[in-house]
């Protein structure tokens, strides 16, 4: 049970995740799933729901951190077109693995959140776009959805009300860029996932040019608690401008990697030392990627940074999806950067020249650097190319590709120099 005293909340999305059998409707209901849904459907109207989500301060948990209630309020009414709700379960940002746990252990929480969101937005058809590799998770979601249909929690006239909503799991097929919401829409329309130029934003013209809301799994899974306990309750958890709990996916050089849901604002050091069993080697990390591989790295001087949107931004990076990748003193930062540059080159969809050409270029130079075939001029090329890619493309993949390179050059110039041909000889 989630306590109604915000200071006593220890989990929202993960509150029931470790209870045995939670993926089945019977157990989930015994543990409180769908208990507040009738109240929402019978006693709240669309405006009231959106208002509560706005008050809650909930920001999109997929990476961009856009206020969820505001996003919902952009959806135009009475357009004569259907409105679609798409759950972004593409979870491809290297370092991120939180949505997987919600879906495989507590699928009904996501379904419940989607029913409430769908009701607030007047949605009749909703989809969960799940990355293709998550076959097991897709199967768990499908089994839960089948149970929900049988219990009249989905389908026509949900729980005897006038509200009807259908929910379909749609598997992607291995393309990182499909986590970008307009690429996701393109993919859901049966095409390669190439991001669309904005505006128009999906809220106005999305899936088949109809009003569409795309929300991350964790965002939607937070909705039931917000509506049950109220927006004010949620706003009191965490720190100003970063309300609520957040799941941090911690990986890399820690003793106990994994997902930890903690109040926003917790210092990074506390998360690593008290939750993750500390670093594998040494007392402070060599570098930390705080929000997934596309976010700039932080150095040991930021080990006490509060894990919140504004504070991480001030430190020079982004909270992103909450994927914390820790590098201890043993990390080969040049090799890691080279590997990430391969990732972005592989995943570039190819429609914008700076990204298509730039990502390949960065990878080739990084490979040559690692092999000892670069000179000082090549380092300038890395810097220059990265700076000219970021912000010059339709989506942010190019910015993500630039982030590790620029971080490496900024934080570890000596290590980079030691790889140069003239210094290797």
């Amino acid at each position, binding site marked *: 049970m989630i306590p109604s005293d915000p200071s006593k909340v220890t989990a929202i999305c993960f509150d029931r995740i470790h209870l045995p059998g939670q993926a089945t409707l019977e157990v989930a209901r015994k543990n409180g799933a769908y208990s507040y849904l009738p109240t929402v459907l019978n006693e709240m109207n669309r405006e009231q729901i959106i208002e509560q989500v706005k008050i809650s301060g909930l920001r999109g948990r997929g990476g961009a951190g856009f206020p969820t209630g505001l996003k919902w309020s952009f959806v135009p009414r009475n357009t004569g077109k259907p409105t679609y709700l798409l759950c972004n379960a593409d979870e491809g940002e290297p370092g*991120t*693995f939180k949505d997987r746990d919600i879906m495989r252990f507590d699928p009904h929480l996501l379904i419940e959140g989607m029913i409430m969101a769908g009701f607030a937005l007047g949605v009749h058809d909703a989809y969960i776009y799940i990355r293709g590799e998550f076959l097991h998770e897709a199967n768990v979601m499908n089994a839960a959805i089948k149970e929900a249909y049988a219990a009249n929690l989905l389908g026509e006239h949900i729980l005897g009300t006038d509200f009807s909503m259908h929910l379909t799991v749609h*598997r992607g*097929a291995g393309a990182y860029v499909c986590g970008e919401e307009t690429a996701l829409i393109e993919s859901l329309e049966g095409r390669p996932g190439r991001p669309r130029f904005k505006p128009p934003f999906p809220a106005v013209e999305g899936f088949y040019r109809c009003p569409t809301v795309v929300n991350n799994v964790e965002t939607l899974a937070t909705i039931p608690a917000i509506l049950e306990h109220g927006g004010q309750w949620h706003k009191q958890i965490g720190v100003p401008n970063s309300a609520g709990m957040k799941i941090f996916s911690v*990986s890399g050089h820690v003793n106990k990697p994994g997902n930890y849901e903690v109040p926003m604002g917790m210092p990074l050091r506390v998360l690593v030392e008290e939750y993750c069993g500390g670093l594998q080697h040494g007392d402070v990390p060599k570098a930390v990627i705080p929000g997934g591989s596309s976010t700039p790295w932080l150095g040991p001087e930021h080990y006490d940074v509060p894990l919140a949107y504004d504070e991480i931004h001030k430190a020079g990076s982004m909270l992103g999806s909450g994927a914390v990748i820790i590098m201890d003193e043993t990390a080969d930062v040049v090799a890691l950067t080279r590997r990430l540059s391969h990732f972005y080159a592989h995943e570039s969809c190819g429609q914008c020249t700076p990204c298509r050409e730039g990502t390949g270029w960065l990878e080739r130079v990084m490979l040559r650097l690692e092999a000892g075939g670069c000179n000082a001029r090549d380092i300038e090329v890395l810097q220059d190319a990265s700076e000219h890619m970021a912000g010059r493309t339709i989506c942010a993949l190019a910015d993500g590709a630039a982030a590790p390179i620029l971080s490496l050059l900024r934080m570890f110039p000596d290590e980079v120099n030691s790889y140069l041909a003239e210094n290797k000889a």
Partner: protein
Amino acid sequence: MSMQVDTTQMEKVSFNAEQLEEIRELVARYPHPRSALLPVLHLAQQHFGYLPMNVQQLVADTLDVNLMQVREVVTFYTMFREQPTGKYLLEVCTNAGCMLNGACELLEHMCRTLGIRVGETTPDGLFTVTEVECAGACGGAPVVQVNNVYHEKVTAEHMDQLIADARAQEDGGVA
């Protein structure tokens, strides 16, 4: 001169009645049949093992879309394969979280054990080893997918055992 795929010489393949019913149900879930393209390609790959041109033609005909639309999608998404793989597809993630926890050494060990390079299949057709991008399970690094089943915190010994078990099962099957 236009680039055309000559489909007249290809062996005809078809979906069975059960699959066609499943496809009808899939199509009904979307505003437009084209949205069912990825799900139907998954279904086809599951059934045929991979997606050669005649299977892509079948998918195009079934959904009433152009063959080039199918080709465009098949070649864009890495999970769709135009070439057959070994019976056991071993996909090793070597992205950040896995790399920091020994994935590259693991991949090297697997290739050495099997006597193949990344992307190749063993001569007996049993194992294919590939390197993949972040599998979204970094808490269990290093991660190897074996025929789409996630194996986490994988060690060289774990992989050796898995390979040995698979070989034993195959030998048993033949005898």
